[in-house]
């Protein structure tokens, strides 16, 4: 029943012994082939949601990934099928090169102490797909924030996981890079379950198949693009008035905020 999907059953995340509630009762099901975009204002709990699914932070309730309940399964088992790409703060002087860093992503699935040829081949392939092959010998601490974003994405993909969690994969990216990243996420969705967060509603609309609106840890709306991208729901989430146009080419809604 829970195979091939990510299921969140009444998930609650609290910090500081219950003083701060980051997620209140989230119920979400994402099937293979779906891309879920999580949007909401700052501090809504987007990152907490992803970290809970990845098993990085504690939560109450149940989270199933391909039939494994996350908190009752050893991390290394989850690590073989899931990858989480969040912010990184790389210490200077100890930083790995881009290629080395991407190879670390394959540790959970590799058996040998040093890399195999296949590991290196896969890592280089991912770099190629993201158009950052030229960065492979640069050190992580020397990258610009946009380059770092792409490397973080590459680190998430190199393991070829079933479940991919991306925390703001489009942050710090220029327009064309955003489109490249969006295309890669949609392409991945054929064989995986992808959940990402973003502040860019247009990016979410054009990348995700379903959207979660999150505010103060509460799910304001959850459904397909057409169900979710509505004036009232967006107003409830962002406290901002939107007008919604329709893109004549893609037939997708284009929300535009009012600058009053």
């Amino acid at each position: 029943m829970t195979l091939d999907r990510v299921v969140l059953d009444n998930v609650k995340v609290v910090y500081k012994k219950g003083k701060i509630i980051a997620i209140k009762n989230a119920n979400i099901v994402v099937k293979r082939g779906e891309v879920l975009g999580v949007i909401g204002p700052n501090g809504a709990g987007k990152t907490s949601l992803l970290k809970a699914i990845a098993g990085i932070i504690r939560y109450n309730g149940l989270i199933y990934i391909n039939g494994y309940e996350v908190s009752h399964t050893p991390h290394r088992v989850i690590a073989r099928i899931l990858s989480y790409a969040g912010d990184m703060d790389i210490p200077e002087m100890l930083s790995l090169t881009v290629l080395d860093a991407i190879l670390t992503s394959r540790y959970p699935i590799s058996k040998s102490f040093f890399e195999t040829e296949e590991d290196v081949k896969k890592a280089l392939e991912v770099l190629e797909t993201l158009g950052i092959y030229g960065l492979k010998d640069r050190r992580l601490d020397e990258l610009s924030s946009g380059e770092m974003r792409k490397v973080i994405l590459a680190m998430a993909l190199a393991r070829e996981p079933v479940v991919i969690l991306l925390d703001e994969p489009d942050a710090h990216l220029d327009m064309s890079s955003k489109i490249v990243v969006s295309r890669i996420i949609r392409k991945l969705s054929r064989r995986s379950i992808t959940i990402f967060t973003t502040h860019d509603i247009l990016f979410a609309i054009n990348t995700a198949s379903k959207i979660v609106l999150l505010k103060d840890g509460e799910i304001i709306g959850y459904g397909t693009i057409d169900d979710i991208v509505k004036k009232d729901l967006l107003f409830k989430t962002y406290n901002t008035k939107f007008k919604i146009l329709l893109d004549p080419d893609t037939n997708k809604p284009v929300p535009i905020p009012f600058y009053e």
Partner: protein
Amino acid sequence: MFRRYVYFFTSLVTILLLIGVVYYVSLYYGLNEVPQQIMDKILLYRETRLIVALLSGLILGFTGSFLQSSLRNPLVDPYILGIGGGALFATYMYHLFFKITNLYWGALIASIGGLTALALTLVIAETIGGSDVAYVLSGIGVSSMFSGLSIAIYYIIISVNPAASYVYTLLIGSFINVTPSRIPIMFWSLLFLIISYFVFSKPLNALVIGDDYAKQLGYDPRFIRRIITILSGITASIVVMVSGIVGFIGLVSPHIARLIIKSNDNRLVIPISGLIGSLLLISTDNFSRIILSSLFGEIPVGALASSFGSPFFLFLLIKRFRGRV
């Protein structure tokens, strides 16, 4: 990809050869006209001293890179984190209260001292912000306190138990008073470090990238950090018990290793760092024993290590903070 393995193996072979040359030269230098009976004794002494220096260097090189990676801090080593001072203090306390000392009890007590100082440094560093420099500052504070106390206790030891005055050499770090009985415990320490190298060098690579990243790879960063710091604390304390405080070797060796193999991958850095530590220590010790002793007397290796290690440390500090105010 392939290139870094070439750098690694060339460096490995070169350093091993250099160690071999220094070892051979130091062992046989100036023994031409010595009668056979004395010769055996001299060779035994020199050999012991060389092996202890080799093992100390390996342990310091390993623990230095372990600590730097697990704490994600390029400015630390066992000496800077206060392990040296704490272990020395505990060792002196042991000599103060017990006239007959046992090697394994000594190791235990030194380790307790080293770990206590380390824990103190880490706790203070975290409470003052946990930055790279916070660790250095808190370590300097803790190690000055223990070193100061050690010097005071040393004076009490020589008045209470003059037979133990040889512990003087521990204060500066020297291989002059070595005995073969010390070799096995150092060997075991090294063995543990080598085993943890194979177990933990990949997790450490992930840990350097970040705790969350390591977690989603299936590693437990807190557990790894705890194991690595405790193991480094114990083994570095054993070095202090045997040869005293030899500062900066643990700091310098990993950085030299990273420079020559042009990689920060712990699987490659850690063993090279160990070997560099060894090479530095036996070269310095024998430079002092053979060359300096004919000019001024045998300067303890710890003093020499500090005099070339601390400028390197200052250089690292400047490099780390250049361009950011």
